């Protein structure tokens, strides 16, 4: 059972909706699609000390799809890195909680926002751990749309060359990018075959199935000497019926009425 992580994901979704609505921010769809991945990581997979965010033996989580930081901030707050109250400042003047993920927030390793930056950076961290004989791992969450960026494919070539089996990427494959479906803009399939051909160890899971996520992520590396790629098939806007698979929720911020409907929908779904 993954009851705890499911509860965490549910709480994170509620906070994401409230944060994005209050801040009149965007990117709610990709935050909701990633909520289960984050919940499993922070409940069952990553080694960390929330009161000692720079603990040297922590696993490093790099959010490359930095526009979906509301879900990460909420997860970090629920896991004790900072107060839940601070989430209300999301996107506000002088807030630490910038609406693209920011390294000055406790628990955040790296600021992103421009796509295609997280994986090369994570490769650098993984090399550092290897060269020093450290046992921590580097995890990176990528969006599907950002796989259009050439820098990711430079890093995808690099990681197996240097046998970075302490590196894990999780692709939040919700099939919708910024201005259209992935299939219509820049088809990625057969994605698993591509990564496999690049000498990665690849698994595919339902990115909302906590048991499947946990089973995959707690058993890395799946092949010695190979970096791991988990393709998490997800639904953009997952958990809010009127947001699911709708491009507009890459941009729109729910108004008060939409927020109430969304929150009550979540209640019915997850209790």
């Amino acid at each position, binding site marked *: 059972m993954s009851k705890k992580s499911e509860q965490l994901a549910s709480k994170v979704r509620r906070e994401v909706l409230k944060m994005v609505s209050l801040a009149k921010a965007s990117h709610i769809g990709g935050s909701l699609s990633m909520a289960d991945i984050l919940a499993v990581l922070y409940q069952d997979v990553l080694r960390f000390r929330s009161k000692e965010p720079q603990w040297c033996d922590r696993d490093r989580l790099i959010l490359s799809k930095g526009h979906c930081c509301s879900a990460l901030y909420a997860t970090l707050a629920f896991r004790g890195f900072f107060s839940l109250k601070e989430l209300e400042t999301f996107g506000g003047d002088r807030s630490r909680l910038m609406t693209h993920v920011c390294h000055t927030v406790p628990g955040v390793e790296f*600021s992103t926002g421009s796509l295609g930056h997280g994986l090369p950076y994570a490769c650098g961290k*993984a090399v550092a*751990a290897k060269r020093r004989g450290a046992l921590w791992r580097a995890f990176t969450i990528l969006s599907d749309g950002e796989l259009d960026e050439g820098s990711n494919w430079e890093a995808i070539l690099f990681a197996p060359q240097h046998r970075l089996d302490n590196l894990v990427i999780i692709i939040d494959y919700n099939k919708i990018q910024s201005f259209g479906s992935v299939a219509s803009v820049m088809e990625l399939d057969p994605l698993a075959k591509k990564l496999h051909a690049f000498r990665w160890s690849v698994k595919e899971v339902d990115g909302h199935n906590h048991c499947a996520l946990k089973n995959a992520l707690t058993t890395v590396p799946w092949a010695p000497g190979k970096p791991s790629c988990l393709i998490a098939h997800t639904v953009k806007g997952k958990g809010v019926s009127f947001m699911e698979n709708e491009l507009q929720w890459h941009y729109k911020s729910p108004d008060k009425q939409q927020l109430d409907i969304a929150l009550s929908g979540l209640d019915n779904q997850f209790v």
Partner: protein
Amino acid sequence: MNPRIFLLVGDLGYSVVEPFVAEFPERFINMGVAEQNMVGVAAGLASEGFHVFIYSIANFPTFRCLEQIRNDVCYHRYPVTVVSVGGGLAYGNLGYSHHAVQDYAIMRCLNPIAIAAPGDPIETVACVQWLVSNPQPSYLRLGKSGEPIIHEHKVSLDLGKIIEVEGKMLKSGVFLTTGTSLRYAIEAIRHPQLHGEWGVVSLPLWNEETKSNIVAELSKHRAIISVEDHFPAGGFGSYLREALADTIIQTRMKTISLSRNVSDLIGNQDFLNSQGGLNVIKLVDVALSFGSQSQNDLISTRESQATFH
């Protein structure tokens, strides 16, 4: 040897980096022809305590991966030194793709970044020592190799420190250089027409914060001619003008930089520099255009301000 130093190269460095690789293989990676990834990996390594040097030619470790330098390195204040070999027109006949003639302009606006542009091998050693002692986002602009040794002794450098190189410092005026244009200035002051009355000073280490420091130093001189192998827009002369813009000092200044026509020409470094307006005759002519010392004394502050525009 500093155990924090890590070297990444962009599939370049043949007959240059082999001794480092042989001695410190655990702190070296050939990143392949992939500069964006090279900078990202450098940032990741730097975040774990390494001072990372990334090495490639001219535009490749700078323009090709500019956003990675801006976001991954500078925004996070990571100690990564971008080393560009072939500054200016050092790779002259390889063509425009290999010319670094806009790099000061682009790199210096990435705050914070320290520019290190040594003028000869002695300054290069001093720059590298300073960079290693002061790990921070930085840009080291090298020539190609074989630049003449100009300083007779070791030099002591610091960020924003203008060093005297040769000649009379407080008489007619000085050539102020950064990078390997230093040698043209040395030749110019030795030219008979300047009667041994001009000096050469060099500013090998500078950044946006040092503007205020250098004004006092500049004000010592009656006239300054800045010299650089770089386009005018945003370059070293432009930097100096920005430094002087809000001050009222008696010093008059002119700038010598490269004209854009060099991009369409083929030739070696000296030929292209000369075609672009960077040659000894030009330097001497500009110095002579300031007139005699007594005339200079008559220049009012108001008029001297006008020469900054």
